[in-house]
């Protein structure tokens, strides 16, 4: 087990290297730092001097990969690639283009993101499983057919409309909760209700459908017939045999996204003005702050790799058949 985890961690290094190289190519090779400077400083009336200043300020005044002016190892280390990527691997994200410390920002903003994303995920999971189980219990009835049609309809509505509709009816017409905003501590609760509710609701269509197929797949299996031959009723079979088996793919599917919850949801947070990482990213995209976007890309992939590892470990916990080696 420990050996397996160590091996997986070693495997993830080349993966993160790959991510790093990819982002490097995207950010520095497709467009030179000069292009970026020109973009940031405005298109017209840019002097060579101001570009050089901007580059020096942001640490882009080095060659990309190989610095032939320096001696020894400095030939490698005094380059944009080395400077910008080594920091990422040590989780030193540096300073954003607007001069703020990215690491501190991330630490501060991860919690509001989590406060929205985690309840959404957990409540959504519960609701989806309940509805899916109900549809499987009443399979081949009008209830199920109606449910399937409803799911497809819910799936066909863009999440933007759920948010706009929710804000409009619950926030504006009924005035039950504030439309948007955020507060520290417990006061945040009233701001969280609406985004969580909408997040859960917008996921119902696809979620219920997906879980229903998982359950149906299990229901067809032989051991379910054995359970019924033992004398268990339909409901008992469903809860005692089908559910535990179907939970294996469901749980492991949830585990892989758990770390990514820190990253928050981009649209949710921007619509509800929640000061999380999703909002942070959107702002960075709109302000074209490359340093932040690069840091978020790296952070996202680290969290994904952790998610993959957690998934493998969770398999051994919930499925007695799987052993890591």
């Amino acid at each position, binding site marked *: 087990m420990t*050996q397996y985890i*160590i*091996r997986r961690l*070693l495997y993830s290094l080349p993966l993160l290297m790959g991510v790093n190289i990819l982002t490097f190519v995207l950010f520095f090779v497709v467009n030179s730092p000069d292009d970026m400077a020109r973009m940031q400083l405005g298109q017209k009336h840019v002097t060579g001097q101001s570009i050089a200043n901007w580059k020096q300020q942001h640490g882009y005044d080095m060659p990309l990969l190989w610095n032939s002016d320096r001696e020894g190892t400095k030939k490698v280390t005094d380059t944009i690639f080395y400077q910008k990527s080594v920091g990422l691997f040590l989780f030193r994200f540096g300073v954003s283009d607007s001069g703020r410390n990215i690491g501190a920002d991330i630490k501060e903003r991860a919690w509001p993101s989590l406060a929205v994303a985690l309840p959404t995920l957990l409540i959504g999971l519960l609701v989806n499983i309940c509805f899916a189980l109900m549809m499987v219990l009443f*399979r*081949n009835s009008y209830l199920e057919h109606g449910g399937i049609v409803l799911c497809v309809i819910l799936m066909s509505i863009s999440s933007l409309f759920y948010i706009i509709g929710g804000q409009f009816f619950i926030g504006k017409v009924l005035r039950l909760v504030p439309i948007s905003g955020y507060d520290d501590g417990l006061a945040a609760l009233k701001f969280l209700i609406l985004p969580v509710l909408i997040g859960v609701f917008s996921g119902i269509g696809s979620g219920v459908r997906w879980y229903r197929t998982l359950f149906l797949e299990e229901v067809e*299996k*032989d*051991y379910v*017939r*054995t*359970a*019924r*031959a*033992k*004398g*268990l*009723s*339909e409901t008992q079979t469903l809860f*005692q*045999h089908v559910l*535990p*088996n179907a939970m*294996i793919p469901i749980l492991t599917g949830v585990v892989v996204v758990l770390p990514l919850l820190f990253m928050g949801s981009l649209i949710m947070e921007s619509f509800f003005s929640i000061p999380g990482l999703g909002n942070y990213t959107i702002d960075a995209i709109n302000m074209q702050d490359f340093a932040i976007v690069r840091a978020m890309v790296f952070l996202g992939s680290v969290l994904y790799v952790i998610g993959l590892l957690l998934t493998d470990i969770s398999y051994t916990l*919930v*499925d*007695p*058949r799987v052993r890591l*080696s």
Partner: protein
Amino acid sequence: MNNPILAVRHLSVTFNHRQTVVDDISFDIHAGETFALVGESGSGKSMTALSVLRLLPNNARLNADAIDLQGDNLLNHSEFELCKIRGRRIGFIFQDPMSSLNPVMTIGSQIEEVIKLHFDLPREALKQRVLELLQQVEIPDRQQRIKDYPHQLSGGQRQRVMIAIALAGKPDLLIADEPTTSLDVTIQAQILALLKNIQQQTGMALWLISHDLALVSTMADRVAVMQRGKIVETGATAEFFSQPKHPYTRKLLNALPLMQSCLTHTAKEKPPLLRVSDFYCYYPIRKGIFKRIVDFVRAVDGVSFDIQQGKTLALVGESGCGKTTLGKSLLNLIPGSGRVVINGVELNALTGEALRRQRANIQIVFQDPFSSMNPRMLVGDIIAEGIRALHPEVNPDQRKTRVRELLQQVDLPEDSALRYPHEFSGGQRQRICIARALAVDPKLIICDEPTSALDVSVQAQIIQLLKSLQQEKGVSYLFITHDLAVVAEIADDVAVMYRGKIIEQGSVVEVLTQPKQAYTKKLLAAVPVLKMEH
């Protein structure tokens, strides 16, 4: 005779309102007897059993005058009331113990579940009862086993657990649906003995459902034969096997491969076609952070044998002994090492194009007639594939003629070439596979359990076809099988494989009548032999 435990009257089962799988059948099962329902696949025997407990799939419709369990008509019971009968008064054993047990529950709790459902026992007594049941089905290390999951047990033990579950409700009737079909022949014998034993202890009735006439003849008191949803003949076992009345029954009995048939073989030495010496097939086991190779799975562990021209060598062994691996690695489908010489050409020295050219010499026919043909290709193209690959110079017209000849040789209609594999039955598909192998004029055909997925009557036809093709073309066979009766029918020589090694080989008469190794003796003893009073 006393009142029957189970009396079924005019039972019919239809699928999707169209397809009738069980067609108006009636039968009785009496207390303490073993009743066997025999039939080929698709005859509706399993559906009959499932319909008694209303466990049919959703798209099936049941229709009957009465299903009386000790005078109590089950049709009058609601689903809820039926739950109290399932598992309690009727126990059920399914064919495949691996898929029929819940993979994420310990076997202890799976047995416990039934007891809790039907009896009100305190915790201690409950655990005691589980251990008692495991003892009854003769599972060793019971205290540890109850914490195990199904995948940690062997196939035989899993089926024992299935039986324990079925016995847990102390049923009056035990339905066993092909209880040993997925098991090796030695395990099969143990399970059958166990069932017989338990039946004697408890005095319950046993309803055995099987396709295997020989097995039924050793187990049953009464036999009923099903054909296409109807029971065509019922009778006491002794009479049934000595004086079968219905033509279908007689056909079935005649199709059975007989162990005695090997006695008529004449041994005539011929020059060897294939020489295999010191052949190995190892899979590495990797461990540790860097996946170092720490050990090997010795699937084939140094075997040597010859096959003579125009003769058949049967490779016999139980599942997992490495016989299929050996067959595939002779074809270079799986890497192996050792000397393989066919017709004077050393195969393992060849690679790339040269190897591809030599492929024509050895061909293979697989076990499963459903996965061995590309469902997206016409039968004509499937048969012609080898010709196209190895003889690109043959023009399309010649190829068509050749395909027609081949279809004729395997007794299939000529228009089969323009049809798709799914339009054919299992036996017909196996004929197509044989035609595909024959297309490149091989010297040797490896037959990997070619008949074990087929019904008895079809199996006999395929064996007959293989034999006549051998006489016609002088082709040799390496016949891989677990079924000793089939070996007796077709083989000239036999090699017995056990754990990757060939432990005994010789002519078929020698091995089957005077086995030297203990394992071979055990194998032979386990084969159910048709009890016939001549």
